[in-house]
């Protein structure tokens, strides 16, 4: 097992290097001269040259990359062009907002997804199963930005707005927990649908296994058979999906944060793209990618740990 973890850790190194090269090349993948674009069309050649100098764009790309990497390793992601503050500080301020949003969305997705999936599997081919699966299909196919806008329309500015649902403020993620509800629902719904479908499929497969018959042959009641014997096995593949969903939410938060004006990493990225603040874009994409790789690694290891018992059948 330790061997597996070490091997898996080593495997992430090329991935991280690849990600960093991609992120670094972002600036070159975009057509046109980055310095010119940052400065704007009307800028004087001196200003453009200054920016180029400031970003080190005159050096050969491999050298720039190495410098970039050595800075990253020291925790230096460069400075924001607009604010002049270190990118690392800008991100730090937003990082936990996004993680928190993703975390709540994951909890919501797990809670609703598991219940719906179990009910669907236990009552499969009945109308409750069919209803749940149709709703899940909607949840899965609804684009986040549309769903978010609809929620705002219905609950925040529409006439159906319940009294306790606070108006979204421009400052977004505030100190009022109720403000969390709509963004979390927006972000988590797709995940809930995926987890529901996964749980259902996994439960249905497990329920047909020989050891379930053994449990019944021992005289166990239906409840024990389903919630003790079947569920524990069925959850193993679901846990993987939950981990991946959490990783996906971190990236997917971009749209949700924009719609609900939440000051997270996603919003930071979008704003930076709009203002051509390249170091910030690079920094956020890099951090989200690294986080994603890290979450995947954890999922992989935990799956392996859980699956050890099952694998060697």
């Amino acid at each position, binding site marked *: 097992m330790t061997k597996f973890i070490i091997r898996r850790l080593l495997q992430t190194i090329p991935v991280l290097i690849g990600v960093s090269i991609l992120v670094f090349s972002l600036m070159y993948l975009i057509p046109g001269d980055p310095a010119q674009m940052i400065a704007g069309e009307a800028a004087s050649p001196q200003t453009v040259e200054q920016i180029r100098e400031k970003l080190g764009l005159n050096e050969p790309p491999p050298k720039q990359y190495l410098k970039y990497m050595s800075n990253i390793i020291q925790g230096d992601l460069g400075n924001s062009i607009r604010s002049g503050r270190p990118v690392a500080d800008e991100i730090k301020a937003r990082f936990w907002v996004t993680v928190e949003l993703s975390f709540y969305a994951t909890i919501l997705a797990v809670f609703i997804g598991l219940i719906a999936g179990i009910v669907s599997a236990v009552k499969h081919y009945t109308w409750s199963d069919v209803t749940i699966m149709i709703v899940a299909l909607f949840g899965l196919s609804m684009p986040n930005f549309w769903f978010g806008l609809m929620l705002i329309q219905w609950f925040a500015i529409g006439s159906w707005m319940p009294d306790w649902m606070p108006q979204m403020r421009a400052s977004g993620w505030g100190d009022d927990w109720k403000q969390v509800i709509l963004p979390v629902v927006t972000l988590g719904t797709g995940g809930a649908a995926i987890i529901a479908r996964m749980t259902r499929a996994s439960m249905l497969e497990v329920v047909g*296994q*020989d*050891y379930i*018959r*053994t*449990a*019944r*042959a*021992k*005289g*166990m*009641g239906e409840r024990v058979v389903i919630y003790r*014997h079947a569920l*524990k*096995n069925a959850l*193993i593949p679901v846990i993987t999906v939950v981990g991946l969903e959490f990783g996906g939410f971190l990236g997917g938060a971009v749209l949700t944060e924009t719609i609900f004006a939440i000051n997270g990493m996603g919003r930071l990225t979008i704003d930076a793209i709009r203002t051509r603040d390249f170091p910030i874009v690079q920094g956020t994409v890099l951090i989200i990618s690294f986080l994603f790789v890290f979450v995947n690694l954890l999922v992989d290891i935990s799956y392996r740990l859980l699956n*050890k*018992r*099952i*694998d*060697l*059948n």
Partner: protein
Amino acid sequence: METDLLKVEDLRTSFYTDEGEVKAVDGVSFILPKGKTLGIVGESGSGKSITALSILNLLASNGKIVGGEINFKGKNLLSFSDKEMREIRGNAISMIFQEPMTSLNPVFTVGQQISESIIKHQKLSKKEANIRSIELLKLVGIPSPDKRVKQYPYELSGGMRQRVMIAIALACNPEMLIADEPTTALDVTIQAQILGLIRGLQTRFGMSVIMITHDLGVVAETCDFVAVMYAGQVVEYSDIFTLFEEPKHPYTIGLMNSLPRHDVEIEKLEPIRGNVPNPKEMPTGCRFSPRCPAATDLCRREMPELLKDDDGNDVRCWIYSEKWEGEAEVTVYGEKRIAKGHGSETILSD
């Protein structure tokens, strides 16, 4: 009557599939006297497992018992409620399965899986149940049981897992054990050990056993009574001596003739020609008639009843009925015999 622990009468179990009703079990009758071993033999697909699962009402959700009686200690199990059946399962009647590799739950320890049953049926505490689990593991011949009790199934070999299954089955001192091909999936050397273990435990605890197998050799070694199954039906039921001395049904005779024996010399083994019928398109008349060397128009037209004689031996074959005209010649181990008149005086004379 007091001595019959289990009496199954004309059991019928069907599955409802997209392609229609599959009559997996369609006329099974047998008796298991207390403390004895009944063998159920038959080719794969003949309905042995479904018969066993019907007894405990453990059928898949598309399966249903559509007829017959299963009398256990004089009470028809088919009239029991779900709750009453749960009290029987794993308690008075336990079952072990063909596939030891997949029959244990991979996410629970051996100890948890044995204890579960004990806690439910004998109302022992977790701690007491664990002590009992270790005793049971020792009983089924698992070395260092106090270590094994904490292990997960993946840490055990197939033979060990089947021993654990037996320990689970024995946990509540059942009156009856159903063993569904308990050794088919195991290596030959392990097979003998497991069979020996079951036999030893049976004599020690006076259990009654249903031993399901496709192997007449296993039957010869372990059983007191035998039910031979073909295409969902019992075609012959008798005590072990009668079965091997005077097999009556042409199918049983066919099975015997394809079995090597060290006590009888024979030039060559004769496998039964043809194939087992598909349960979706059963032949009309006797189900064995398309493969039977003695079949007549009557056999192909009408299904024979299970005929009972005074010694409690049954056969489902027209040859032994009043309706049969003339005589039928059968070859048992290269020896020609005349089969005729079940119920009348002559049964298999030379």
